[in-house]
């Protein structure tokens, strides 16, 4: 399978999906149609899930995102959770937030309570 790399746009984040088991989501995510934007990410994860690396490291460093993206991000995490539960790969999620951005810290905590995957939250600086 191929790696997927999307360059950040004015309304969309930088996305890296590397078959070596590295996943990154950085910047802002405020597209009007988030489902359309995240579709290739979902597809990539479905393909990766069939034969993942023993460890999958996920880095999420978002400045802000709209509520429509928040649902897609949860769906990304759910797919990762399924990979983790399958026992094929040890998935860990690292959630980074800007110093002083309590909203983003809280949002990280919200996901942490929903998703059953090792999940760390820390300041980016």
């Amino acid at each position, binding site marked *: 399978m191929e790696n997927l790399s999307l360059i950040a746009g*004015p*309304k969309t984040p930088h996305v890296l999906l590397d078959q070596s088991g590295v996943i990154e989501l950085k910047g802002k995510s*405020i597209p*009007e*149609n*988030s*489902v*359309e934007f995240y579709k290739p990410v979902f597809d990539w994860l479905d393909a990766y899930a069939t034969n993942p690396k023993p460890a999958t490291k996920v880095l999420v460093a978002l*400045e*802000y995102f*709209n*509520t*429509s*993206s*928040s*649902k*897609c991000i*949860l769906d990304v995490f759910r797919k990762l959770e399924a990979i983790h539960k399958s026992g094929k790969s040890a998935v860990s999620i690292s959630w980074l937030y*800007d110093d*002083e*951005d309590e*909203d983003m810290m*809280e949002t990280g905590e*919200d996901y942490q*309570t*929903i998703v059953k995957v090792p999940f760390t939250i820390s300041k980016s600086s």
Partner: protein
Amino acid sequence: MKPAPDIYSIYQMMEREHIILSFKGHITKELMSSVYQIIDSRLDAIDEHPKKKKKVYNILVESLQNIYHHMDELQQEEDPEHSTSRDAMFMIVRGEDGIYKIHTGNYVLKSKCDLLQTRIDEINGMSPEELRAHYVDRLNTTELSAKGGAGLGIIDIARKSGNKLGYSFNPVSEKFSFFSLIVSID
């Protein structure tokens, strides 16, 4: 003859009311992109605190996208009596006290008003902790619509604002009311 409308009095009114940005018309993707850029540079220009800037930006994005998605739904209800039903308005105010107010106005079907009012009243009645729990619950259990909405917008706006949402409904025709929403950010 006096020119109508008198642009100078509108200018004075906007100055007096500390309106930093205002728009009336169709909310399109292109418009939203421009508005985000404008507000981003305006807030940088006045050296707004990054935390507050982020809140204002976030709430603005969510408010405009709410209207945008709503207009998409309304399109299927095209009303010959009211061809402007896809029009909307918004206004961003920064008071001398540094408190921002984001005003939005758009047409909603009268049949949906009661539901919307109940929903806002419910949200206004919640403590920050309850709002957070409500958000997480909805995030966890609601499916996305084809366009990507999950009814999370209004909860997120209330949560980020930290203030009660102000609203009103003005009946304009048999079918439509004009829905006004005011969100404060202090």
